[in-house]
């Protein structure tokens, strides 16, 4: 299928330019670099939040740079983690004298480029702490949580840690909270139809017309279990079973619940999915606090969705609800 672009090599620069043309009130760009920063930097003395990630997943992460969330985002090529020097630029830009948390969604490239960037930054005297984010239960078994990959549930960390950073918390407090959110978050995704790679112009995987694929990754990495398409309530129930028993989430828990659209699935369907999620939670005696339904972490026009749950304490709920001023996440 055709993509509405000019040249593949120019995609990332042009998406940044277009984003800035539209939302320049919120964000600016480091001159000549693929790094998006707040138009008004955070106050001196507050800890910065930065991330490097491959493009093609918009609105994450570029849409979350602004007050209450991120300070700087280094954008790699489509689906490709940015190189260390670009992440270093983002770290420098995010530093307001109190250090920077580098958020790293656990994928081989993000981790390696991020770790090298942290080394380089520390060699310059920057106080940087990496925070590995992982939540996808399809990618490693229970007991090996630290081997799992980052999935849309990382959204909870961006928002909650972002809000605490705005309040002036220390680097240690932020990474501790970030780990607490991570360790209480679980995500599972389902793919319905592939997105088109803007690099190859071809579908990113193939899937029979009557199958749903559980466990797909955010780059279109195929999943682990195929279900026949049927009423979506059944698909959601199967997914919720896996999610609930993994943490486990139990009666009396309060959770942040997030249904993310992968790109090609309509909001109509996402609402119908959330209806089923809410029904399962209610039946289990689990309370949902301020749910989120929409497209936040996309894989081009892949059809599918993910369900993320985060068991939340009062501090996490307060920060999840806290104000934010970025173009693509709202309070």
């Amino acid at each position, binding site marked *: 299928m055709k993509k509405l672009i000019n040249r593949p090599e120019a995609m990332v620069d042009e998406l940044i330019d277009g984003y800035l043309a539209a939302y320049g009130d919120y964000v600016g760009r480091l001159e000549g670099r693929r790094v998006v920063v707040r138009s008004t930097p955070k106050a001196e003395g507050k800890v910065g939040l930065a991330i490097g990630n*491959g493009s093609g997943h918009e609105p994450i992460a570029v849409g979350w740079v602004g007050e209450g969330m991120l300070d700087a985002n280094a954008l*790699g*090529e489509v689906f490709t983690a940015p190189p260390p020097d*670009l992440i270093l630029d983002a770290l420098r830009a995010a530093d307001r004298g109190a250090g920077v948390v580098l958020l790293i969604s656990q994928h081989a490239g993000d981790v390696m*480029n991020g770790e090298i960037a942290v080394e380089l930054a520390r060699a310059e005297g920057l106080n940087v702490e990496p925070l590995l984010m992982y939540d996808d239960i399809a990618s490693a078994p229970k007991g090996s949580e630290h081997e799992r990959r980052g999935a849309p549930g990382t959204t909870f960390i961006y928002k909650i840690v972002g809000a605490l950073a705005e309040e002036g918390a220390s680097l240690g407090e932020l990474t501790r909270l970030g780990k607490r959110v991570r360790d209480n978050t679980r995500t599972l995704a389902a793919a319905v139809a592939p997105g088109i*790679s803007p690099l190859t112009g071809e579908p*990113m995987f193939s899937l029979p017309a009557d199958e749903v694929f559980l466990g797909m990754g955010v780059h279109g990495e*195929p999943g682990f279990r195929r279900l026949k398409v049927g009423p979506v309530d059944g698909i959601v129930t199967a997914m919720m079973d896996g999610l609930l028993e993994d943490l486990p989430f139990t009666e009396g828990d309060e959770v942040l619940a997030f249904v993310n659209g992968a790109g090609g699935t309509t909001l109509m369907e996402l609402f119908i999915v959330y209806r089923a999620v809410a029904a399962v939670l209610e039946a289990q005696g689990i309370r949902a606090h301020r749910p989120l339904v929409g497209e936040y972490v996309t894989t081009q026009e892949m059809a599918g969705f993910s369900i993320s749950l985060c068991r939340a304490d009062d501090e996490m709920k307060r920060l999840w609800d806290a104000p934010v001023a970025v173009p693509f996440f709202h309070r």
Partner: protein
Amino acid sequence: MTANEAQTLFEQLATAFAEAEERLGSLDAAVGDGDHGVGMARGFAAAALAASQLPGDPDASEVVQVAGRALMSAIGGASGPLFATLFLEVGKALEGVDDPKPAVAAGLANAVERIQRLGKAAPGDKTMLDALVPAAEAFTATAGDLTSALLAAREAAQQGVEASAELPAKRGRARYVEGAGVGHPDPGAVSIALLFDTWSALHSATERES
């Protein structure tokens, strides 16, 4: 190895990876996200440019290191740090040496060690290490000169690729795929084989001419 030969090496690698772009992309699409070909092509284009533009009178070590740095900032993803490390270590090992053969052997050994530390993978995990580790070992085990060591490495890398096809992935994106990619060669391993193939062919030709 002369600076000139090193510069030619990166020119030829740029050509080879430009030609292999689609094939590597498809291999990666089968088990990962399809960006390996375009990334390697972009990286070696940048490396060749940087190598050719080094001012003054550089030696081979400088050329290889500057190319390694270019790879590091041009590729990104998983393969950027890994392939950059390979050349950075080989380049460092070439510093001030007369005989390139033992220097390259030492550089490859360091590279293998650093790459394993960085990626936390081991041979058998279905990554570029499955081509690189046997290539490095074959290189070191070869008693002869650089030419024969490169020939041995090229051979071993190619065998490593074939063996990798039968492995289930334990690292990289392919580990998440149904069947963990069994039946598909690892794209990073294929790139390692292409790299030794290109280098060996260039060096043999250079030797014949001289």
